[in-house]
């Protein structure tokens, strides 16, 4: 398998690809509407609003209303993309997400913009590191975390046709292109680099870092497989089981709390198998972040390529 190395030279804000694809879809299908909470700018919906003023429903700073309105539109045959900064969309409107969207089976696409620690210096009130834990616990809600602009675009298109409740985590922190011409494949991990010693399972902003880590580990004689797990729920359990038999350990990396997101989901598969493999879970361990930029905070919490490489090499050598 080819190894597309993350090029750090050019990086992208996934919200741009998100907005372009959404407008494209809206041109093709008049059922597509956007609902937002005074976030026309931060959700990158300026162009959408210009082109489809009637189909942009801005309820103001009112997330519970926003999600309820989205559900009402979905239950009336529309395909609403409900957009808001992820901490407020998921935190403020969690019960609406559970009752009005997931439990009611309303085909709403919840778009958590600027997730993780994208709002670095604004602090923990504006960070959304709990979202994956919260949402993964809700039955019937798909949780999708694209890794780069191309995958964001492809996931937006998939979500518009999914006809079921979806949460889409749309990154603001700039990332390199890593998925190449692979389409987003719902519920399936994609192997971005094959390897035989250790598997790194990454999502979102961590995918390019995992690829970089694998490249560096190879130089030290450790062969690392990199899985882009862009669907967190439902999880591609088969890919995890293959990683368990074909490699000797698993590292998970996510810009989220490790209590219930990607790492916890993978661990739940690993421990129920007959021969579990050792794991390292990289993420944030129930801590509020100190002040700093996103890049600084990722370093602070051990989420750099170097940290991933170290964890992978550590697992490979411990077992050797």
């Amino acid at each position: 398998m080819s190894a597309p190395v993350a090029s750090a030279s050019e990086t992208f804000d996934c919200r741009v690809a998100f907005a372009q694809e959404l407008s494209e879809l809206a041109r093709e299908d008049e059922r597509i509407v956007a609902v937002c909470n005074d976030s026309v700018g931060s959700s990158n919906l300026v162009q959408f609003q210009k082109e489809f003023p009637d189909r942009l429903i801005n309820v103001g700073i009112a997330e519970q209303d926003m999600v309820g309105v989205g559900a009402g539109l979905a239950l009336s045959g529309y395909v609403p993309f409900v957009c808001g900064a992820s901490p407020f969309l998921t935190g403020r409107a969690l019960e609406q997400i559970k009752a009005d969207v997931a439990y009611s089976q309303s085909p709403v696409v919840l778009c958590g913009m600027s997730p993780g620690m994208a709002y670095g210096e604004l602090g923990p009130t504006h960070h959304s590191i709990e979202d994956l834990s919260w949402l993964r616990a809700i039955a019937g809600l798909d949780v999708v975390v694209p890794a780069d602009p191309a995958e964001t675009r492809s996931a937006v298109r998939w979500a518009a046709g999914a006809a079921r409740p979806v949460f889409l985590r749309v990154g603001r922190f700039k990332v390199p292109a890593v998925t190449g011409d692979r389409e987003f494949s719902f519920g399936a991990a994609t192997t971005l680099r094959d390897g035989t010693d250790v598997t790194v399972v990454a999502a979102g902003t961590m995918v390019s870092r995992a690829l970089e880590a694998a490249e560096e580990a190879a130089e030290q004689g450790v062969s690392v497989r990199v899985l882009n797990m862009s669907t967190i729920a439902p999880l591609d359990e088969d890919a995890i089981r293959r990683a368990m038999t074909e490699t000797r350990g698993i590292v998970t990396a996510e810009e989220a709390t490790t209590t219930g997101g990607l790492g916890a989901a993978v661990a739940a598969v690993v421990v129920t198998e007959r021969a579990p493999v050792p794991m390292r879970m990289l993420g944030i361990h129930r801590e509020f972040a100190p002040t700093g930029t996103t890049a600084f905070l990722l370093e602070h919490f051990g989420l750099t390529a170097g940290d991933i490489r170290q964890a992978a090499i550590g697992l490979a050598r411990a077992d050797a």
Partner: protein
Amino acid sequence: MLVADPGTAADWRRFRQEFTDAGPERRREMLRERANQSRTADLHMIGRAGLGHVGGDMSVLDILTTLFFSVLRVDPEKPEWDDRDRFVLSKGHTAGALYATLAAAGFFPEAELQTFAGPLSALNGHPNRVKVPGVETNTGPLGHGLPVSVGMAVAARLSSSSRHVYVVLGDGELQEGSNWEAAMTAGHRRLSNLTAVVDRNRLQQGARTEETNTLDPLDDKFRAFGWDVLEVDGHDHLALHEAFTAPRGDRPTCVIANTVKGRGVSFMEDRVEWHHKVPSAEQIVTAEAELAR
């Protein structure tokens, strides 16, 4: 998903036609009788299940009966007909009253009521749209119905559909802030195709609303949010019918329906403990006799 009972649906259709043709006194009598039959059915459901929200059920049943038997453009045999009016019961804990009403209209067989709250029944303690035809969205946690109804009204407008959205709210649930977010949106967008009915029985689970967290002046609150407000006796079927069908201006309408919790059963009326107390077999016999009068 439960399916319609064609025989009962045909009876319901005849009822609607007869109502249309009848004079005021006959109309009043028809809805009163129909509502009290649903009250009796509801009491038996709660007695059998050993749980339910009897006080609120009795309070809201005249509103539900008036809507389903004389106002809503719906078809029990085509519950997903696109241009149907939408009805949302935001006070989802009075699911029993809704189930009794839907069954009486033929949305599903009345025999199903016997399963209320039993293991694997479609009739959960709070309504589920995936299982029960006529239920438009799942409710139960309070403060959810109005935002969803606003979305439905926005959708109707976007589709240039003449369908109307009716949502019934408990008065106590207006303490949830999400209602006021939605009330602002409805007022701002001048959603004249939306009617919110407040079941104003002045009691919440633990005490009187005004002792807990004052709601009055409720009419002024809604007016201030850009709504037209009508206030009626919530047990006067003709007044309710008139309020629900009155010509609309260019604003959403709030119908404040003044009701009595436990209405129709003397020992339950306006008593806070009957929020979710379960009547004994003897009490049900007494209540049934009162309702048959």
